[in-house]
């Protein structure tokens, strides 16, 4: 039984399970959206004193902070008890990445970029520091991330969310196809 849970969960299992998350949060009177936690953290750290955008009762968002704490614990549980082994990445992607010097191994992320020991290299600063900053800045400007726009907004057939998702792809395609070969060589 437990063996069936190892390895990659197929898309037609994972997608509907994410809909379960969407539904339960709605049923509990909340809305699915992870990036709101970044704003809540700003407020917790006192940003509301100097800036109206962060001046709200962050305690009303405690449920969402607890939710992402759970996501962290879930990541640990899956890592410890449901090992994946080799991730079946498409051969075309493996070839493309190897051609620009990115290794593909057993890990979820390329360790030549995301290893803690690489912390002070220029390459890692670009991917981690700049990348993280763009995620936080862009998602708030757009008013949501994958969970808020791509999942919740599209499920509600909202045009703004479709525009946001098109934006996600403009930015992602630009970095992947034009910038990545130079950035991984830093």
């Amino acid at each position, binding site marked *: 039984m437990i063996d069936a849970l190892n390895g990659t969960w197929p898309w037609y*299992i994972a997608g509907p399970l994410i809909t379960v998350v969407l539904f339960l949060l709605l049923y509990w009177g909340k809305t699915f959206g992870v990036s709101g936690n970044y704003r809540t953290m700003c407020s917790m750290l006192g940003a509301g004193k100097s800036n109206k955008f962060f001046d709200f009762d962050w305690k009303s968002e405690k449920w969402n902070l607890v939710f992402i704490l759970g996501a962290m614990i879930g990541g640990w549980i899956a890592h410890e008890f449901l090992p994946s082994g080799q991730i079946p990445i498409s051969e075309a992607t493996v070839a493309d990445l190897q051609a620009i010097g990115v290794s593909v191994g057993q890990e979820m992320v390329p360790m030549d970029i995301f290893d803690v020991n690489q912390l002070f290299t220029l390459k890692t600063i670009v991917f981690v520091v700049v990348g993280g900053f763009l995620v936080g800045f862009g998602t708030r400007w757009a008013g949501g991330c994958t969970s808020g726009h791509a999942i919740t907004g599209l499920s509600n057939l909202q045009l703004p969310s479709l525009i946001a998702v098109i934006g996600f792809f403009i930015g992602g395609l630009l970095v992947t196809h034009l910038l990545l070969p130079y950035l991984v060589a830093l």
Partner: protein
Amino acid sequence: MKLIKYLLLGIFFGIVLTKSEVISWYRIQEMFRFQSFHMYGIIGSAVVLGAVVVQIIKRTGMKDTMGESIDLPPKDKVFWRYILGGSIFGMGWALTGACPGPTFALVGNGYWLFLLVIAFGVLGTYFYGVIKDKLPH
């Protein structure tokens, strides 16, 4: 104690993100290179089923556990914030290989540098709050 159900649902979410490899930088590369159906299948099936769920909620007037009617907050009908903010977010998504949900699940998987991704995500959010009145929306 009312919060425990959110913790359990979060654990479930973290397991799903990890086991379907949504948290993998390589899966995001596959997606942006159009070389695998995996990510499109996950997001697509979540949205199609989600749209059915939302329609059922609306048409039956389903109430939440507090007895309130379930409403999805509408988004402002504007353009620039979605296309420009979305594009910036997309650049960050391709670099880190992670949107906000996976950043937390990756930390749980022991990829500690994603604590720094989260920290700079929070800083980027703060920066938006500071300059937002100067940005087109």
